[in-house]
């Protein structure tokens, strides 16, 4: 299959070829998802170098594991980002005492490219992310905070309860309410 043909495949049809160790299929996979993977890794670990390392480790693990993707686990993008998130949290935990980066820093700006330099694909990716971010930002701050501490910070609900000096049940409830609202927003098409 030519590169052009591979580029026309849906993610779900591309992954079996990656699983068969087709390097060109993997390259197409990389070009589709590396940007989102790097963005998430950077968000969690808070440095460009560590973000690159996490992204590289996660994507190579997909290549070497035979890409055990299962459609039942959601989209290829979500599955990939789950792997990236786990790698990033592992790195944070190894570096004991290091605080997760929980707010967008000004230094991210240096990596942003001017809108006019973006390809169409990148522009769509960023627009989608912005829409999703907007939906999450509409959550009450106490719900958004516990979700962010858990997902991007890698803290357990017990650790979050201790950190915020709130009862564990309160933290659990905020997580559930916040995630229910995100689900509802998704059901309404954001």
């Amino acid at each position: 299959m030519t590169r052009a043909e591979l580029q026309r495949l849906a993610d779900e049809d591309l992954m079996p070829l990656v699983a068969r160790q087709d390097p060109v299929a993997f390259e197409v996979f990389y070009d589709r998802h590396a940007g989102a993977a790097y963005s998430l890794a950077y968000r969690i670990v808070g440095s460009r170098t560590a973000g690159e390392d996490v992204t590289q480790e996660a994507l190579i693990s997909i290549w070497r594991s035979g890409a055990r993707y299962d459609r039942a686990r959601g989209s290829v993008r979500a599955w990939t980002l789950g792997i990236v998130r786990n790698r990033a949290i592992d790195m944070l935990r190894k570096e004991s005492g290091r605080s997760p980066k929980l707010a967008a820093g000004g230094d991210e700006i240096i990596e942003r490219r001017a809108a006019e330099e973006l390809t169409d694909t990148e522009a769509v990716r960023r627009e989608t992310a912005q829409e999703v971010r907007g939906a999450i930002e509409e959550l009450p701050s106490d719900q958004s905070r516990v979700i962010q501490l858990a997902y991007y910070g890698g803290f357990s609900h017990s650790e979050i309860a201790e950190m915020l000096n709130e009862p564990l049940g309160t933290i659990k409830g905020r997580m559930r309410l916040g995630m229910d609202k995100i689900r509802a927003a998704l059901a309404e098409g954001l």
Partner: protein
Amino acid sequence: MNGEHPDRDDLVAYALGALEPEEERAVEAHAPRCARCTRELEALVPAVGVLGESVEQLEPPPQLRERVLAEVNADVERSAEREGPAPRRLRRGWRGLFARPAFAVGLAIIVAAVGGYLIAGNTGGSGPEQETVAVVPAQQGIGGTLAVDENSSMLDLHGLAQLKGEEVYQVWVANGEAVSPSSNFIPDDNGRAMTAVDGHLPSGTRVMVTREPRPGLTAPTTPVLLSATVQ
């Protein structure tokens, strides 16, 4: 746990990776045998997925791509050595050069940007039949490599602007005063392209790329965007 089933709060926390290890193990022991909890966890997958997608989107550095694909290439090569006949190699293996020490080759190629600024000078090769230079983009914009084989060469470019209408990128081969058209191409959505330059390229041959208003022209009508001179 709520009787036999985990609390819904715990399933949400599990989906977010926020349970303590022993609580996590309890959910993992129960859920696969429980249709109700499995359904609940599956319903949470998209909501957790959007958390990963909602972050500020950044441009990954080009060298990350080179490093990842170099590892992939190295795996393919190791696999080929173990298994005999080679599987399809990625880009003839030249991406892997970024991860290997450069070694001397008999043929040097200089790739220069418009205006004669040197943007490359790192030579390497993947075998006796092919000589390759890895080009590090020296400016925001176009960069790439030219790999020269005995009877066919390959340009691998990135940072190319998207084309409009009938426009194409045109490759030209110059020997002395004579300039002849070679292949033309359209980059992918990420501004990348690979294109073959057919025929033997003797020393002194200059390979150039221009952006032309349409295919089929017999001489360049726009400034040279990139050139590579075989020495």
